[in-house]
């Protein structure tokens, strides 16, 4: 340690050994913050004797989570199904549309403004309208799709346009067809960007699903987690609200981690973002 410590460290590393964070610390630090927060939460509820319909303690939330698990689990599945469907539609739609736009400038100029309009109009305002015209489940999925597809579209477009000009010349030299250029050059080059878009879309489709469920909540027989939150709110069942919220957060984190892992697995052989600091 002392011998290696006396050499000048690489530029991107902090000079002191003790300042460097290890992977274990990177896992433990957020967990420590979580534990401390729960303790503080528990202490406040206990100390001021706050009634559960105002703020339930962490223990009560945990108990509720277990007791209401059958209901919450079914709701979680419903919301996850909506999210996954919306995400899949956003991925296919966003990538597909970007490919179409890339092949035809006419299409791009004709339709891109509307994609942007769809993106900038708040989905919470569109949801009630969709619920009038579409069956409820479809409407909810469409909401998730609307929120999630734009980052995929714009990132994929950026990726398809970020191809090395030298490689474009090379493909031209060997008389590559449009399809070959797309398949062997543009798509692989765009892959890191596409995954960036998908990672954003994963979280957004959950948001879209939740927003639509809340909007639908008053309109009909929704049973997703967001609906449970709204319903529990009306019934002053605050512990269940917290339990449902907790599940939503966990779902969001899991979705993000799945997409980050997929991205890492696909890109680790060649892309800077996935190679990391070890090389």
């Amino acid at each position, binding site marked *: 340690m002392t011998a290696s410590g006396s050499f000048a460290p690489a530029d991107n590393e902090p000079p002191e050994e003790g300042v460097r964070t290890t992977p274990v610390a990177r896992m433990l630090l957020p967990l420590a913050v979580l534990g401390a927060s729960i303790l503080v939460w528990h202490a406040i509820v206990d100390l001021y004797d706050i009634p559960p319909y105002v703020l339930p303690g962490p223990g009560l939330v945990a108990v509720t989570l277990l007791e209401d698990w059958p209901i919450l689990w079914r709701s979680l599945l419903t919301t996850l199904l909506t999210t996954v469907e919306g995400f899949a539609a956003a991925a296919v739609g966003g990538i597909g549309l970007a490919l179409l736009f890339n092949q035809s400038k006419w299409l791009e100029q004709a339709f891109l403004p509307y994609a942007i309009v769809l993106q900038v109009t708040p989905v919470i305002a569109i949801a009630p309208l969709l619920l009038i015209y579409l069956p409820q489940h479809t409407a909810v999925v469409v909401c998730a799709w609307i929120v999630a597809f734009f980052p995929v579209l714009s990132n994929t477009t950026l990726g398809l346009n970020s191809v*090395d000009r*030298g*490689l474009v*010349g*090379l*493909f*031209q*030299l*060997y*008389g*590559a067809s449009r399809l*070959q250029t797309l398949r*062997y*050059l543009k798509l*692989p*080059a765009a*892959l890191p960007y596409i995954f960036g878009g998908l990672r954003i879309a994963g979280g957004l489709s959950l948001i879209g699903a939740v927003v639509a469920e809340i909007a639908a909540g008053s309109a009909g027989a929704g049973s997703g987690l967001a609906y449970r939150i709204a319903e529990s709110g009306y019934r002053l069942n605050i512990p269940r609200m917290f339990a449902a919220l907790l599940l939503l957060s966990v779902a969001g984190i899991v979705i993000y981690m799945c997409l980050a892992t997929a991205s890492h697995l696909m890109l680790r*052989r*060649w*892309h800077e973002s996935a*190679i990391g600091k070890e090389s």
Partner: protein
Amino acid sequence: MRLEGVTKRYDRGVAALGPVDFTVRKGEFVSLLGPSGCGKSTALRIIAGLSEPTAGRVLLAGGGRSIGFVFQEPTLMPWATVRDNVALPLKLSRQRRADIGDQVEVALAQVGLAEFAAAYPRELSGGMKMRASLARALVTDPDVLLMDEPFAALDEITRFRLNNDLLALWRGLRKTVIFVTHSVFESVYLSRRVVVMTPRPGRISAEYCIDTIEPRDENFRTSAEYAAYCRKVSAALSLAMGAHRR
């Protein structure tokens, strides 16, 4: 191969090249030597068909273009292995997979990269990347090899080694090579004929044949003969630059 009155103007009317007339014999190694921006790369791109001349034409023996191109940068696909990068031209011309494998192995062996077939470009040094790029240009067994300052970004030791390897390849394969460079020393060392070009618009200012004992090796690089050729070509180059300044 012959260039007849080849001229290139850009959209704003800036003359970049020519008119240029010159002939390259089959199997000849010719250098185009000139300062940056003299249109020598443009000439190469026109020969390759990557750019259309504003006037004039390029005549290639045998009609069809059978060309390998080595760019200034290695221009490898970072997501593909060396093998897949080299196989690309064959894949684009829809060759059978079995044939592709054999031809790729041959090309990789020619540039001494056989052991690195499965490596990704980021795992290679600058010189090895350039070798992969060269293998890709050779894999279609083209009649003409066009090289656009391929070694300009390499360190001198690597450049010298690649110079020698390129000469050995050329002796073995006898391809027609048109080599664009801004280095007097490199052009004299490598080529049988050095074509000196003027700055914008690029025109041919002088030509020198380098007649020396073949095969050339490092002894040539330190010989008085080499120095004399370099002096002559350098003088021609400054003359070409001077003509532009007046």
